[in-house]
């Protein structure tokens, strides 16, 4: 029997009825009286000087209400990390990528806005451009930003322990690399927004965003508006995965146009613009050297990473830090050296995406560990178990594994997949492989330096006591956070889930840093729990005064007051509720239980509206070195996965036969939603492993900026996936809960790489594993073996 009534169940999502009936409102479903439509003018060139902009023809087009360029927008620099603010709302001196924004138009309808944008004349002088890491670093290469010497937009150099000394003591030293391609978030809802501006100077933006708070701050800063006058509201959002985690030019332009015209302005990206402005996964090139002892003990890791960052910094500093720091675990690693470089190029800018910065690094290392195990004659699963960290361990870079069911995850997938009878024993062409990974449950610090709470939550009880309204600025983007917080609130107050209503995603509801770095379950969850317990205490306190029963002798469970000692006479209280409200149709019955509803009504009589508040910011976290802020978290979720594949050696086509996945999410709040996140993570990982790649021509233009040519998994591509929940108790999490949405994407690619090797004996060091690449790798492998 669970100690909880709501937590740990499979309650249906609170938003499912609206979504299953087509009634859930996304921003593109909204319209407003007098609404105008906005369109952007974007650069056709990857790198060019702007010599002049002539908007006169656009302004003359009937139906056009405003045209804005850098002249109206100003030149305030903004971005994601304050240390790298390198964008302005519109380009003024030069463009740095295809799609860079020059101007925006508001008109009475979309067709007029698009036509007007095409009438704006820009005098460009094309400049030589750089698209690859090699081109960007070449001597005399043109600079994307004058400030970034050699086009290095960020670099990291860290050493923990003494890697060179440790390598000298090793019996086996292995060096390998892995190169990935740019992946797009490819959510199905393109970004969109509607901005309104009223006569009192209030700017309201309805936007498809993951982070209302950061958008609010960025808008205020870039547009020069008082923060208190800027409100950002998130309707339902059709997926984010990282790309919707920072303010976009679309949002800036819509606000500016609304301020210029005094009318609501709607702007929606088309699919190609999602690819151009997605700020999705970087391309990574990793080289790693690992040293081990004969018995498999991991001694040291030397790691170098190069990231192709595109035209702007966006989240890139954090990305390049994460690419190193997330290798500190889950294996005991006493010595680690990391050199990471993020390179600016004239491709669309990259940013954060599910598993931020860590996915390809993890894939590279987990493939290498398999190779090491093979050379040592060890089962790769045993090699991992031998080095595994457990709860309480701290990594060499100061990540505190306050809970860690990594070992349990490995054991669970080993047994569920029948690993022992399959590994190395499957027929040629069939293979099995495994890998592990972990991820933060929220960043320890906000993106800007501040003492701010990371979230505040209020819960207000309606006067009749029948409904508790949870208000949070956190972002439900599909992951199920509204349901999670409604469940936590219900548990905390001791009432059924049906009595809780949640409203979220509005900066008017308080501060919440939003849905990124897998932070909400732990952080917003803690604030929600605190607010709920605060409500409960207020109700019990009022009741205590009425009944002369000490608060500590009472509790609330399943919507009823529990008297731990003698039950007092309740008849007077019960009659009072009903007497007051004869005309209410849903009065509680006169049985001998006292409901939360009645008790809250009594509390309302003495205290007015019952409002509980909660807040959260992480405790002091480890690490005093430069960059320690990226990777430190109150908790870490972890996963082990096993992939079973078959490889057609004639064509190079890989079929994933089965995925077995175990994730430690601490206490599962909603088991069905945890499994849903595991499935979704694996799907995105398998897409990146097998076919996803955003391609450009030699002018930096998109070659596959559409969902037909950009291949991602359909229902027919997905294998059976077994999602097994491993629960630990996370001391820093609400009811012991921590993340699931990102830790779970960490092992997927490496599990596939290792399974492919098990199937055909070939190691592949470049993604994606499309038939052509696999076929050529097999061919090369055979030719090499024939020579020997």
């Amino acid at each position, binding site marked *: 029997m669970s100690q909880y009534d709501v937590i740990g169940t499979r309650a*249906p*999502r609170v*938003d*499912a*009825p*609206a*979504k*299953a*009936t*087509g*009634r*859930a*409102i*996304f921003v*593109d*479903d909204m319209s407003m009286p007098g609404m105008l439509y906005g369109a952007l003018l974007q650069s056709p060139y990857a790198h060019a000087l702007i010599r002049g902009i002539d908007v006169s023809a656009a302004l003359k087009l009937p139906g056009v209400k405003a045209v804005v360029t850098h002249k109206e927008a100003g030149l305030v620099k903004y971005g994601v990390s304050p240390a790298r603010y390198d964008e302005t709302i519109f380009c003024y001196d030069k463009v740095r990528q295809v799609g860079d924004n020059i101007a925006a138009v508001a008109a009475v309808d979309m067709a007029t806005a698009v036509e007007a944008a095409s009438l704006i004349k820009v005098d460009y002088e094309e400049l030589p451009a750089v698209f690859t890491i090699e081109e960007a670093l070449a001597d005399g290469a043109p600079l994307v930003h004058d400030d970034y010497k050699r086009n290095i937009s960020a670099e990291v150099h860290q050493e923990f322990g003494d890697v060179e000394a440790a390598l000298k003591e090793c019996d086996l030293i292995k060096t390998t690399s892995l190169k990935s391609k740019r992946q797009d*978030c*490819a*959510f*199905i*809802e*393109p970004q969109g927004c509607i901005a309104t501006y009223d006569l009192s100077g209030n700017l309201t933006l309805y936007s498809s965003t993951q982070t209302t708070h950061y958008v609010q701050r960025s808008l205020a800063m870039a547009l020069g508006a008082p923060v208190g006058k800027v409100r950002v509201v998130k309707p*339902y*959002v*059709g*997926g984010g*995965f990282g790309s919707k985690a920072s303010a976009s030019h679309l949002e800036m332009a819509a606000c500016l146009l609304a301020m210029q015209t005094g009318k609501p302005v709607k702007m929606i990206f*088309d*699919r190609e613009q999602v690819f151009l402005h997605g700020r999705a996964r970087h391309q990574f090139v990793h080289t790693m050297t690992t040293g081990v002892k004969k018995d498999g003990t991991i001694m040291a890791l030397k790691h170098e990473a190069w990231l192709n960052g595109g035209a702007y910094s966006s989240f890139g500093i954090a990305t390049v830090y994460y690419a190193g720091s997330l290798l500190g675990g889950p294996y005991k690693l006493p010595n680690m050296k990391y050199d990471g470089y993020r390179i600016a190029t004239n491709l669309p800018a990259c940013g954060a995406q599910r598993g931020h910065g860590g996915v390809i690094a993890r894939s590279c290392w987990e493939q290498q560990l398999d190779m090491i195990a093979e050379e040592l004659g060890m089962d790769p699963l045993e090699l991992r178990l031998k080095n595994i960290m457990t709860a309480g361990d701290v990594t060499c870079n100061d990540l505190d594994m306050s809970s860690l069911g990594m070992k349990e995850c490995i054991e669970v997938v080993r047994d569920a997949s029948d690993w022992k009878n399959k590994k190395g024993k499957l027929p040629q062409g069939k293979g099995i492989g495994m890998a592990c990974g972990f991820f933060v449950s929220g960043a320890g610090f906000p993106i800007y330096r501040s003492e701010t709470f990371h979230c505040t939550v209020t819960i207000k009880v309606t006067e009749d006591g029948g409904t508790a309204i949870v208000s949070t600025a956190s972002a439900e*983007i*599909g*992951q*199920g956070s509204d349901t999670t917080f409604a469940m936590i609130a219900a548990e905390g107050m001791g009432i059924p889930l049906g009595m809780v209503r949640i409203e979220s995603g509005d900066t008017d509801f308080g501060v919440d840093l939003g849905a990124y770095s897998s932070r909400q379950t732990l952080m917003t969850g803690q604030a929600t729990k605190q607010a709920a317990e605060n409500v409960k205490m207020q109700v019990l306190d009022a009741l205590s005064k009425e009944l002369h029963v000490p608060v500590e002798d009472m509790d609330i469970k399943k919507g009823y007051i529990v008297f731990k000692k003698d039950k007092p006479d309740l008849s007077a209280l019960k009659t009072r509720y009903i007497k007051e409200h004869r005309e209410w149709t849903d009065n509680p019955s006169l049985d001998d239980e006292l409901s939360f509803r009645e008790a809250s009504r009594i509390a309302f009589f003495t205290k007015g509206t019952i409002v509980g508040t909660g807040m959260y910011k992480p405790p002091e976290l480890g690490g005093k070195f430069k960059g320690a802020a990226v990777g430190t978290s109150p908790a870490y979720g972890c996963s082990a996965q096993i992939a079973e594949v078959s490889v057609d050696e004639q064509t190079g086509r890989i079929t994933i036969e089965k995925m077995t996945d175990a994730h430690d999410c601490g206490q599962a709040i909603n088991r*069905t*939603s945890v*499994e*849903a996140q595991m*499935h*979704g*993570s*694996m*799907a*995105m990982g398998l897409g990146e492993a097998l076919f996803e790649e955003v391609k450009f021509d030699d002018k930096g233009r998109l070659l596959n900026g*559409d*969902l*037909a040519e950009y291949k*991602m*998994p*359909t*229902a*027919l591509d*997905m294998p059976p*996936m077994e*999602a097994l929940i491993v629960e630990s108790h996370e001391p820093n999490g609400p009811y012991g809960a921590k993340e699931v949405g990102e830790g779970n994407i960490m092992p997927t690619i490496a599990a596939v790489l290792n399974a492919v090797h098990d199937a055909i004996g070939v190691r592949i060091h470049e993604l994606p594993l499309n038939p052509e690449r696999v076929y050529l790798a097999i061919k090369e492998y055979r030719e090499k073996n024939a020579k020997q």
Partner: protein
Amino acid sequence: MKKEIEFMLNEEKVIVEVEPHWTLLHLLRETLELTGAKEGCGVGECGACTVIVEGDAVNSCLYPVMEIEGKTVTTIEGLAKPDGTLHPLQQSFIENNGVQCGYCTSGMIMSAKALLDKNADPTENEIRTSISGNICRCTGYVQIVESIKHAAGSMKNTQAAQNGK
């Protein structure tokens, strides 16, 4: 030049003026205020805009509006009964968590309905094939396929119960 067209929409006759170059999706969303069908790509590649025309699931973003003259169209808004009783597919998507962000959901349910209307007892492969034009980035399709399977089962049971009467 606007033209008048007439067709059956969710069991009601509709007479409406359209521009001949519009798509069915445009008519539904922008004129008739039925926003259940979503635009994810606008060019027939994602399935978020799926509706049923004459029994077949179609991408309404590609469907020329003039071609629906005289035809029967069902959208997600037409699935629940007027008294609010949900279609078994909708009920099943709620109970089996076939929903995450919800942007693909209307299209998924319509593709599944077109399948179940023709094939009451589909195999898993037939289910997957029927939604292979509907991309979902959130779910990995597991709980969506489960939802459709369960709906098929409950529809069959209801049918059997009715036949037994």
